[in-house]
């Protein structure tokens, strides 16, 4: 029972870290995606490089680099901020790719119709292409968000007191590790269910409108 309360103390941190890094990353990802599709070759190359770099280094290594590397000697970032930043950057790279795929799924005729109506590039995206892109990106984004929820556990290694952190602390104190790990697993499953449910609900709602 005492173990449960201690585990529960980690839940707000896990949720906060998942939410903030996902939202920030989803936003940065839009920018990164725009750069990847830019007409400037230099910007395109930079964005492609950034995506490759962010995606091919494991999250834990990024967190160490940001927390110990950048933090050490320059600015000492609080562990939560460092973890959020690192995970947001990784999310940005992944979301940029998800957006890019989704964009190619929006029929070319949509943009043409918007151009023929004289809509400005901003309105073409905001009113016409953007909403359709997000609708297509939604399932992949939800899958990624669930993965991210689990990846936030690496933040415990730099001292964020999330669920994984509490599990480690408990296991080291109590010698009955297995039971605690199983409870932690159930907790992560319970946390990921709402994400899946939300994504499914939104998807169905949007699909109902445009269903053939």
């Amino acid at each position, binding site marked *: 029972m005492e173990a449960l309360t201690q585990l529960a103390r980690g839940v707000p941190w896990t949720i906060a870290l998942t939410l903030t890094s996902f939202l920030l990353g989803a936003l940065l990802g839009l920018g990164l995606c725009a750069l990847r599709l830019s007409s400037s070759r230099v910007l395109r190359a930079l964005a492609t490089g950034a995506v490759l770099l962010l995606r091919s280094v494991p999250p834990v290594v990024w967190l160490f680099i940001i927390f110990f590397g950048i933090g050490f000697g320059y600015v000492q970032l609080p562990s939560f901020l460092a973890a959020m930043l690192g995970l947001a950057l990784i999310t940005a790279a992944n979301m940029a790719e998800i957006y890019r795929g989704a964009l190619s799924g929006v029929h070319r005729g949509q943009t043409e119709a918007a151009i023929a109506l*004289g809509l400005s590039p901003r309105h073409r995206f905001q009113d016409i292409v953007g909403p359709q892109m997000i609708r297509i990106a939604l399932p992949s984004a939800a899958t990624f968000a669930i993965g991210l929820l689990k990846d936030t556990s690496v933040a415990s290694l730099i001292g964020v007191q999330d669920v994984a952190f509490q599990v480690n602390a408990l296991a080291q104190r109590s010698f009955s590790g297995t039971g605690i790990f199983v409870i932690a697993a159930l907790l992560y499953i319970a946390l990921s269910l709402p994400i899946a449910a939300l994504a499914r609900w939104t998807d169905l709602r949007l699909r109902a409108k445009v269903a053939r």
Partner: protein
Amino acid sequence: MIQTPILKPGPRQDGPHPDHAAAGRPQPSAPVVRIENLVKRYGAYVALHEIGFELKSGEVVAIIGPSGSGKSTLLRCVNQLEQPDGGCITVAGQRFEGGKEHSRAALDTLRRTVGMVFQSFNLFPHMTILRNVSIAQERVAGRSRKDAEDRAMHLLARVGLADKAGQYPARCSGGQQQRIAIARALALDPQIMLFDEPTSALDPELGLEVLAVMRELAESGMTMIVVTHEMRFAENVSDRVVVMADGRVIEEGPSRELMRDPKTERTQRFLHAVRDR
């Protein structure tokens, strides 16, 4: 039988909004569209070879010809969906030279002057029918939501679909979708309407309701360029027919005359082929 909507000839909307007044509205007899030596290339492939023709205000021109002859490309050059590589297109007094960049302002005016209807309708699937017809009025013409929706309802009534206003495009038949697309294009009060094979994606029966709307639009005095495979429409509704093949205009003339008595062998072959179907 499908009930076809009746378009009242109503007040003409080829209207003097300020942009056009500034550009100098063409005299009724002067061409509202003039295409000169138009060239369009895709790499080494030449899609349009020095095309030229003119269109007077109120005229309806049908462009016919075999697939791949450049009809759609030509149409898409008129509103700069495709950028020509050479020659010149003048629309409502505004010159667009091929191979040059055009200012945003010039393109904005062009697209308010010219409405377009696509083969695949291209309605916005995530918006209601009403929103499809009102959005550009708010974003481009700066109308209030109420004004835009009033105008949209009026246009939907004109194409016989006022009762669909609150629904999404996926709930409509192809013919209904294309009529909505026509209402959407009319919402900005264009002077010229472009139709890119508007019935080619439709069952013949559904095509009829679209053609009825187009016929009534033509009768109300709208200037129209229609790329089509509907030979009866070309013959009976349009004033003139332009025949294209291999990126060239091979024949052009008053529609009845041309359709009944084509001069070139190539046109005769084409008409023979499509009529034999």
